[in-house]
């Protein structure tokens, strides 16, 4: 496999007495989809926030293209080519698709001494970039609030890709979507991968993850419980690991005991 674009080496993160991450290693290579799977509270969010520069790790190091790096801020991370697409997507519903696409990085056009927002360029680019990803807009000036959940997700991803992301961190991009919408987003993930972008796909939906993933890392109670290549593991095994096969068996036994133990 190619050289990882970004890697975490035995990273730990504590919040007071809480161990949020312990000795976690994780990496992603260009043109690869690496899925991060785990239940609620497994430490997925902390891991993403560490990767995207929101938190600094308490132990361990982050490397970008092999070089140890400390991110000063999320903006700093973005500049090194790592773009996190959070669940809130950082979209403003009342603003147009094109204006959202360029929010914070507005294209300007100079007219003598004054420079003004190049609306025509923004509209055309947003439209083209989204069509290239298979999203046909009605009108780049329509408010984002009129888009469906899947389209919004795609807009956020397309925006990150357009602004030169080498690594995309997608936080549960399909969790709130219906079947059709989710498949649109999954297609987009595969497309991004084909463009040589490394994708970190955070999910607790094994079915979605298995379709697009190349590698799978399981996170449990702040610890890494294993990384598997797709060739090493099939969907059911992954599902078992993910759903905590043992926990379910224990639960079943416990429920059985409870039923038997209760007075008739």
């Amino acid at each position, binding site marked *: 496999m190619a050289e990882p674009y970004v890697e975490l080496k035995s990273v730990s993160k504590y919040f007071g007495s809480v161990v949020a991450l312990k000795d976690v290693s994780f990496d992603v290579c260009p043109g690869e989809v690496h899925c991060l799977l785990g239940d609620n509270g497994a430490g997925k969010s902390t891991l993403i926030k560490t990767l995207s520069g929101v938190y600094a790790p308490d132990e361990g190091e982050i490397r970008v293209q092999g070089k140890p790096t400390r991110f000063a801020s*999320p*903006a700093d991370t*973005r500049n090194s080519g790592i773009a996190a697409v*959070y669940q*809130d*997507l*950082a*979209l*403003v*519903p*009342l*603003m147009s698709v094109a*204006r959202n696409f*360029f*929010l*914070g*990085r*507005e294209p*300007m056009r100079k007219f003598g001494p004054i420079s*003004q*927002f190049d*609306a025509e360029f923004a509209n055309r680019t947003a439209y083209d970039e989204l*069509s*290239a990803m*298979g999203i*046909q807009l*009605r*009108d780049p000036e*329509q*408010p984002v*609030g*009129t888009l469906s959940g899947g389209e919004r997700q795609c807009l956020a991803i397309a925006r990150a890709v357009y602004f030169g992301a080498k690594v995309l961190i997608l936080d549960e991009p399909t969790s709130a979507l219906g079947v059709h919408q989710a498949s649109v987003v999954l297609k987009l993930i595969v497309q991004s991968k084909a463009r040589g972008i490394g994708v970190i796909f955070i999910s607790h939906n094994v079915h979605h993850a298995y379709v697009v993933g190349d590698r799978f890392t399981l996170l449990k109670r702040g610890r890494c419980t294993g990384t598997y290549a797709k060739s090493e593991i099939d969907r059911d095994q992954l599902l078992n690991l993910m759903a905590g096969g043992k926990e379910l068996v224990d639960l079943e036994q416990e429920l059985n005991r409870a039923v038997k133990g209760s007075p008739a």
Partner: protein
Amino acid sequence: MAAEVRDERIRSVSRLSRLLSRPELGAAAGTVLVFVFFAITAGNTGLFSAKGIINFLEVSAQLGILAAPVALLMIAGEFDLSVGSMIGFAGILIAIPSVFWGWPIWLSLLFSFAVCGGIGALNGLAVVKTGLPSFIVTLGSLFMLRGLTLGLTRGISGRTQVSGVHELALNDPLNSLFSGQVFSGLIAWLSDMGLVGKRADGLPSISGIPVSIVWWIALTLICTWLLTRSRFGNWIFAAGGEANAARNLGVPVARTKITLFVMTAMAAALFAAIQVLVTGSADTLRGTQKEFEAIIAVVIGGTLLTGGYGSAVGAMFGALIFGVVQMGIFYTGIDTDWFKLFMGAMMVIAVLFNSYVRNRAMRSR
């Protein structure tokens, strides 16, 4: 790639339907309505003579000067309730130094603008740093500024009114920026063409366009350009629409809001400069309730109270409606006591209409 596949569930949107989802629509329609109403009820009273038009435009202009920047601030999701008190305070800052301390008018004007801008920045900082609602923070400033104005004025002059600015301002270089009239040549020519009526002594019924009207139009144009064509405008919409998302994308939300608070405070100072130089005096009670009138104009203009949506042109229509109704009621001879009832009702209707328009805009097109 599936780029050419059009969703069969999408119907094309007509130009009309797009027009119907503009924020200014309600205010524009309201303006037409109000004009028609007074054309019928006050058509022959002189409301629409050159003199009458200038009269109501001047009322609209004063409010419109406030309303344009207040619209931007409200689109960014904040209120400034202190603009009314700021007008009184700014007036005193012009009158006291020139009348009691012998400052030239231009220096007092600059002083007033600088101090008001500073207070605006403090308002903004207080809102941004504390995270308290701007409604409360600026409600505090509303009272503090009014108290400060009264205390200072009575302390220094012993009265609540300072007059005698006229004589001092006569030869001041900045005087004509804020008082007097422009385009008198044009008006004289229009009068010769028979488009503007003449008085009995043969002079045109109006001698020019009051400079406040020029300020109003210029400020509206600037604010509209800022909002729709500048980077700052994008930030204003984003700050009011979804501040968190904006911050995550690197938009300086705090700086944007503070800048807007400075702008509304400066607009209040401009209002005061015009008022003091036109009337020749300052009064501690000047500007009372202007903050609410500005909000009414802005809301009639289609700006959402919760931020993220609105327009400066809408605010201009809102101010125009305000002026026409105020003068129209006067000209028709209706008891002017009814004016506030009318404006209040107008605002409530506007809010209902605008929320309908916005829902239209947000519906999947």
